[in-house]
């Protein structure tokens, strides 16, 4: 019994660590990447040394000239900020909302297959679990928007919910194609099916399952991957689908009234959700922890599998940021048009194609 | 068209009681002045409509409406321009200080709505039949009309001190 509690504690601790590290690294990357794209410098002052000095009350020197500790310092700053709850807000729900949003993201980390023996909870319906639990966070966003008693917040949360509920469909359907191909909902099972050379990845069709004939599915899978990627951008409220928090329209959407640590938790949840969204794409389409070259996977270098997985995820996260700093924002009706008139028909088409392939060709 | 032609055309249409006089550089008592036509204030509405709709005049844009405090009287100065005919004219409507009223042109030119509101805000000239006659730059409950020459800046407004004591009454 002690063992179970210990195991739970360790797992939870590791997950909290992973979420925080992912959040901090993503925020740092976002700043640096946007800075380089926009001909700016980004954070340049706060290094770890100067952060330690600042906390210890010593003289702060300009060390660490690439600003590595900037996100950490920002976190500390947000912790110290005044925690404001608006007068007309519903205090209980206002406090509850960030926790629910964070819980929705945090729980999904449990089923991420970082490596073959490094999955916090390898449930046999892993993929389904992630999809289901991430829909829980939507209610937190609604709660935040309503309880802050701010019309911009309410509008933001309504937009956000409509968007997430709609985009769950193309995301779900595009993932079902993969499930149909592999015949399992287990994240581990799906990744294992892509072992070997990189052309076994689901992005390139079903070569890993059925040999050369699997290439027939290449266009379907590419469409699926793009649909999933766009859908996950929308589900995580990222540009060009960041209309729920469109700062030029809704001030900050559902977290307009939040300050300090509560705001930081929303932020962390958002970056966590981005990581999860792209991690699913990596696991399902891009071979998960397999590097794509059998020799490397079989060399048994310790830690290489999670590293490969996280690297691939961050490559996708880079693309997400690249898109954010390049494209303008869609309008809310255009967003719905994109979902219902383009993504859903396309994913349904690929879904049927895969079904036909599965029944008649193989 | 020259100001005289416009003046004659207007006079033919509305009569001398409404179109009072025309001034140009030569006939003016001042050193420098754009040509302008004096209009009876309450006739502004119909004159404006005619100026816009007549095909020869076709003054389709009202550039500017400025109020002027003449001492005994208040005046609204209209600068009009025609994109069609590429000519311009200045109209002046003078009204008394106690009961300032001018016919609105807001139904003729869209922009007049706001320009007249501004003139009302600053000079207290009432524009008859204006569809949305409110203050525009100042608060709705502001007292007095600041651009009149006899305006005194208030010491307090809604309990807030808006003029420091040392400045009050000195200038």
């Amino acid at each position, binding site marked *: 019994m002690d063992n179970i509690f210990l195991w739970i504690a360790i797992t939870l601790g590791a997950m909290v660590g992973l979420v925080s590290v992912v959040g901090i690294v993503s925020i740092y990357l976002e700043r640096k990447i946007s800075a380089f794209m926009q*001909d700016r410098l980004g954070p340049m002052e706060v290094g770890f040394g100067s952060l330690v000095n600042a906390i210890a009350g010593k003289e702060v020197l300009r060390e660490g000239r690439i600003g590595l500790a900037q996100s950490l310092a920002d976190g500390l700053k947000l912790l110290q900020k005044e925690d404001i709850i608006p007068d007309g807000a519903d205090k209980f729900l206002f406090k509850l909302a960030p926790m629910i949003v964070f819980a929705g993201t945090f729980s999904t980390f449990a089923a991420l297959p970082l490596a073959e023996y490094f999955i916090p909870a390898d449930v046999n319906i892993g993929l389904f679990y992630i999809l289901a639990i991430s829909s829980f966070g939507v209610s937190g966003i609604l709660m935040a928007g309503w309880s802050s008693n701010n019309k911009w917040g309410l509008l933001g949360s309504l937009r956000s919910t409509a968007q997430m509920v709609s985009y769950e469909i193309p995301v779900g359907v595009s993932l079902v194609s993969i499930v149909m191909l592999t015949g399992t909902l287990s994240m581990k099972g799906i990744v294992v099916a892509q072992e070997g050379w990189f052309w076994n990845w689901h992005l390139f069709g079903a070569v890993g399952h059925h040999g050369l004939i699997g290439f027939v599915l290449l266009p379907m899978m590419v469409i699926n991957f793009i649909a999933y990627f766009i859908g996950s951008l929308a589900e995580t409220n990222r540009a060009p689908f960041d209309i729920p928090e469109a700062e030029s329209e809704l001030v900050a959407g559902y977290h307009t009234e939040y300050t300090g640590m509560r705001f930081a938790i929303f932020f962390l949840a958002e970056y966590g959700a981005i990581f999860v969204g792209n991690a699913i794409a990596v696991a399902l389409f891009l071979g998960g922890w397999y590097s794509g070259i059998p020799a490397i996977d079989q060399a048994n270098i310790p830690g290489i599998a999670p590293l490969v997985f996280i690297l691939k995820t961050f490559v996708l996260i880079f693309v997400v940021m690249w898109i954010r700093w390049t494209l*303008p*924002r869609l309008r809310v009706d255009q967003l719905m048009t994109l979902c219902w008139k383009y993504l859903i028909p396309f994913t349904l088409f690929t879904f049927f194609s895969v079904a036909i392939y599965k029944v008649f060709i193989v | 068209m020259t100001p005289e032609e416009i003046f004659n055309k207007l006079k033919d249409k509305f009569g001398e009681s409404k179109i009072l006089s025309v001034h140009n550089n030569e006939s003016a008592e001042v050193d420098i002045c754009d040509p302008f036509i004096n209009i009876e204030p309450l006739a502004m509405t119909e004159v404006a409509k005619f100026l816009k709709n007549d095909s020869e005049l076709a003054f389709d844009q009202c550039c500017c409406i400025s109020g002027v405090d003449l001492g005994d009287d208040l005046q609204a100065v209209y600068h009009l321009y025609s994109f069609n005919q590429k000519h311009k004219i200045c109209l002046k409507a003078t009204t008394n200080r106690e009961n300032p009223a001018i016919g609105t042109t807001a139904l003729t030119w869209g922009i007049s709505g706001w320009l007249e509101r501004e003139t009302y805000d600053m000079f207290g000239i009432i524009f008859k039949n204006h569809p949305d006659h409110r203050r525009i730059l100042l608060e709705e409950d502001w007292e007095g009309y600041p651009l009149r020459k006899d305006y005194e800046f208030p010491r307090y407004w809604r309990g807030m001190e808006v003029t420091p004591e040392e400045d009050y009454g000195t200038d």
Partner: protein
Amino acid sequence: MEQIKTDLMTINMGPQHPSTHGVLRLELKTDGEIVDSCRPYLGYLHRCFEKHCESLDYLKIVPFTDRMDYLAAMNNNWAFALAVEKMMGIEVPEKCEYLRVIVSELNRIASHIIAFGTFGLDIGAFTPFLLAFNQRELIFDLLEEASGARMLYNYIWVGGVARDVTSEWLKKVKGFCESYKPVINEIDDLLSYNKIFVSRAANVGIVPKDLAIDYGFTGPNLRGSGIEFDLRKDEPYSIYDKFDFDVPIGSGEEGTLGDCWDRYMCRIRETRESIKIIEQALEGISLEGDIYEAVPKNFNKMPKGEVYVRSETPRGEMGIYIVSEGGKAPTPYRCKVRSPAFCALSILEKIAKGVMISDIIVILGSIDIVLGEVDR
């Protein structure tokens, strides 16, 4: 089928809102995301410019005009200077005219950079905004070298300009012209023809020709509606008749004539024309001569009378109406400013019905208001 009845929601946009470009308050009545009516409330930045003018010397008003349209201070200075010069019949030395053209066209570019940069920002494109701002910094460096200030210049005086420039400065301006051209092409690639951007800006906030004239649109807004009218071309003041440049007008090439995209594109194209003018002015200018030659020592010779002078600022036609009592009074009896942004903003009430909340922001961005000038 029986109509489903819905209530309207009132939303206050502003005075503190990221996209009202200052302190403007819009009272929106919306049915969900669809705007039913929009009522602007102005005056948060009202600083009694016209009242102050009545107690200030003509030369002392010039720095006040900086603060109206703080994004195009040079053009405002010039507008006021033109009015007083016309009143006093001052002939400005040719060198000063050239300098005025150069600095105000530079300022026009800087102002348009803000206009289309923040317009992109309103739609969510952050990067083009910052790329354009790099160029604005270069312009600021140039104008700082000429006038000593970065934003509020007080440079164009009645009868002349405040400081002389060097030939090095002219070379730097030339260098800027060269560096600006590729940047505007880049912004075209990144923003103007971007599919999402076009879908957000085209067919939104359509202002047809007659409505544009009726609601006092001037400058790029008017030209965006397809009317070829530019005071620099149609009523040339100063030495604008010496220059060869085009007047870009909206054509509805991505949507309908007079939509937000047309107004945006007019500004982009206008900066190219400004570069053309600057390059011609750089060739024509000679650095010999005194810049203070025509600056009046005092205003005792001010005639009695009134003038209304229009000039083309980046936001449109700025009209200055001055009434003077004559020589004994060194201050204007009345000074009225016809503010282009004030007039253009009045159309918002008219075209806001039926658009979405996001479109209100796009429309507001496309008519390019500066609240300092709207409220004065």
